[in-house]
């Protein structure tokens, strides 16, 4: 009688494993979030909030025009120093020159120094994305950013 040859090797069928993994990958790819969302915090006044003391802190007012130009004006404490508003013209395509705005703002804050709050006032037809981009640049200088409701060009 011959001994029955016993196979010591065994095969693992990997096809079901591959099938399951393919399904997992397809599912995870379909629910994956590829864009990270963030948020920019904007302060606004509510109700009747009166300042505690008579002296207002230095603040800036940034006006966005539909032509793409930006005007940085000074309020409160700055008025006493007679600092002239800074105007940044638009580029050839009618959009805000963000790099120039950032540089100008940086030089301004370095030279005049103490502004901590800024109010952004866009004109009605200014794209929302440009307003956000301007606020993003203001946030980079650790300023408290407020957003005023947009106004017509005449009011601006």
């Amino acid at each position, binding site marked *: 009688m011959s001994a029955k040859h016993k196979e010591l090797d065994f095969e693992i069928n990997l096809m079901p494993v591959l099938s399951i*993994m393919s399904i997992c990958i397809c599912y995870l790819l379909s629910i994956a979030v590829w864009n990270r969302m963030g948020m920019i915090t904007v302060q606004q006044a509510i109700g009747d909030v009166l300042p505690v003391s008579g002296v207002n802190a230095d603040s800036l007012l940034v006006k966005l025009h539909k032509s793409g130009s930006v005007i940085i004006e000074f309020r409160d404490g700055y008025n006493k120093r007679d600092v002239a508003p800074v105007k940044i013209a638009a580029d050839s395509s009618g959009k805000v020159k963000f790099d120039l705005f950032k540089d100008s703002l940086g030089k301004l804050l370095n030279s005049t120094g103490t502004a901590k709050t800024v109010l952004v006032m866009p004109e009605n037809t200014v*794209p929302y*994305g440009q307003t956000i981009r301007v606020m993003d640049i203001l946030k*980079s200088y650790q300023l408290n950013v407020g957003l*005023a*409701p947009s106004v017509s060009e005449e009011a601006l």
Partner: protein
Amino acid sequence: MMKPTFLQSEKYSPLASCQSLNPQVNNKAAKKAGGLIITSLVDAFSILVIYLLFGSSLNGEEISSNIGVKIPKAFFSQLIEQDVTLKVQNNRYFLNEKPVQKNQIAEQLRVLYKNRAVKDDKGGFLVVIADQDRPAEEINPILIAASEAGYSQLKMAVEHEGE
């Protein structure tokens, strides 16, 4: 003497068994189909699954955004926190994913704010989602309504950009 099986043969080679010219095996019943080495494929798939599993669990809050709303991008943004969301798309407003009339936004926000204040004292904030190409005047009703309702903080949803 037991004849070794084809797979146990020393001369077995998956590639060689596929050769029609100068075949390396003498077995007439040689398989024409070669064996496919898929262990590396399983390794790659498992790494991909693990990466996607970790990737999907590390995100913070999720906020649904309608297809067609292109939110603006920003560098200096914070992680999204979800409270009350107000979305504007083509001059239509959605409060917590439910459509709302422009003149009713303030009233509904006031109710939400009041309920929020009862639950905790943090005051609450409003997440605003809008398309970057739309004019800024579409945001006006939101700003005014939020101010009337008592929301002092607005969180503008942006797509975070790395520096």
